[in-house]
């Protein structure tokens, strides 16, 4: 037999003892305070909120210092090695009271872009309409996965004691994967293709991905960017030329609204816990608002929607009149969400509430 390492030798010794009937079983008596738990399912089944009972439901103000992936509420043996990555470990900077609910909702509302979109109902469209749809899809394919990359950038640093938040963010990453795939599929499915990427979008995405802290990034992405995209999804459903786009946008709307919901309640939680950090949020939103307004006015961004709203490239000015309401609604809903979160930006917002007629 070849020479084995001490680790392998130790494991073989333990197996040998077990073969001799010498078992440890000390784990059976671990965590006595957590034993005897009988969580009860609610009408929706056994949810994360349902199992937050007794010590398992105590969300610490600061995540456990052991820095491992040990589950909240378990007994962590001394000497358990830290993984060295979980440095986002304050409840205030990640928590939202609706994270568990939104995670369960996300899992229940998963859909498949292959199965749940009635692709067979696609029909040939006039060339300008197809190009407008394809440009819209190109831009959404480009920007949607920022809401996957950004959570992924922070997820591995968030302390495991806040598993509700981590699970919600994992569900968001998967939502965004689906958005990226469904818009790409639509662009390639009806005789068109991808059109032009957007330098303005990249500018906004860079501000989001480089945001200096998780909460600042969340305010920028969940509330500002995803809030605006939520309205664009609603507008996409409104303008949809066939039942295919109708269903795509309606299902994406649902997903996006969950992300906005998390961001709003996270910001509320953060501002209540750390009011002295309000200026950080204002500062990043100053930058984000300018970037998103600039992006919205890019020809490749706005013109496809004007074509769809007017009904053709020769009726874009009609389309402009028909979409005038959208900007006001988008900004009002954004400011309203911030107010619900505890941040009043009505007098500071960089985006004009009304556009020149």
């Amino acid at each position, binding site marked *: 037999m070849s020479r084995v390492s001490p680790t392998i030798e130790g494991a073989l010794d333990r197996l040998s003892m077990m073969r001799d009937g010498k078992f440890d079983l000390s784990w059976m008596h671990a965590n006595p305070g957590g034993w005897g738990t009988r969580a009860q399912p609610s009408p929706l089944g056994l949810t994360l909120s349902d199992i937050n009972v007794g010590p398992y439901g105590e969300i610490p103000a600061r995540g456990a210092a052991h820095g491992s992936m040990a589950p909240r509420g378990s007994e962590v043996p001394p000497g358990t090695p830290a993984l060295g990555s979980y440095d986002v470990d304050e409840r205030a900077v990640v928590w939202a009271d609706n994270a568990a609910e939104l995670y369960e909702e996300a899992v229940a509302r998963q859909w498949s872009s292959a199965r749940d979109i009635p692709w067979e109902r696609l029909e040939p469209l006039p060339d300008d309409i197809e190009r407008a749809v394809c440009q819209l899809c190109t831009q959404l394919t480009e920007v949607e996965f920022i809401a996957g990359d950004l959570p992924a950038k922070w997820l591995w640093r968030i302390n495991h004691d806040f598993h509700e938040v981590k699970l919600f963010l994992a569900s968001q990453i998967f939502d965004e994967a689906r958005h990226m795939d469904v818009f790409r599929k639509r662009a390639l499915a009806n005789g068109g293709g991808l059109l032009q990427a957007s330098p303005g979008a990249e500018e906004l995405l860079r501000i989001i991905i480089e945001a200096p802290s998780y909460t600042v990034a969340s305010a920028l992405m969940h509330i500002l960017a995803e809030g605006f995209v939520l309205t664009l999804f609603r507008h996409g459903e409104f303008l949809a030329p066939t039942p295919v786009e109708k269903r795509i946008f*309606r299902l994406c*709307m649902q997903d996006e609204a969950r992300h906005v919901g998390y961001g709003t309640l996270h910001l509320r939680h953060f501002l209540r816990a750390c009011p002295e950090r309000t200026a950080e949020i204002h500062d990043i939103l100053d930058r984000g608002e300018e970037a998103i307004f600039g992006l919205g006015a890019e020809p490749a961004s706005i013109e496809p929607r004007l074509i769809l709203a007017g009904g053709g490239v020769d009726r874009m000015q009609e389309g402009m009149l028909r979409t005038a309401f959208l900007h006001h609604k988008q900004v009002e809903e954004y400011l309203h*969400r911030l107010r*619900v979160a505890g941040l009043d930006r009505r007098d500071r917002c960089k985006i004009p509430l009304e556009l020149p007629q």
Partner: protein
Amino acid sequence: MDEFPSVAWFQRLAERMAAQPEKYRRLGPIDMTLVPRIVFPDGHVELYALAFRGHTCASVEQPASLAAVRGPHPVVIEGDYAAWRDMIESIRRHGGADLNHTLNALTLPDWPLRLAPLDEREGQLDVDRFYRYAESLQQFFDEAAAVETRFAA
């Protein structure tokens, strides 16, 4: 045949929802109270409160006023009677909402239907629930395709 609007008419939709548990389970749970507010040509207003819990519409009530609406996360969807009738007739004609008569398409411009939160503190958060449950709520109203309807005005 039930008259629109009435508790009985909305109850028919709720019954059809309850009869298709697998369809609505797959769409996902709902937790909100939708409050249709219908303004008649003569100016009188009727209110209904549809309490969605999980995968069902658990109750249909006709509150006397907005202040009397009970249930979590109330969101008003309001519009003239003609707009409601037009939506329902379209659903019945096409077997479901056509491109111009989905709940989202009718409410996005705030006309002919409009969404408004009842709870000022939660405000937009409650309206955002309407977006979170968009597909389920659309399917619920699309049940009108199979409900024999008599119009009140």
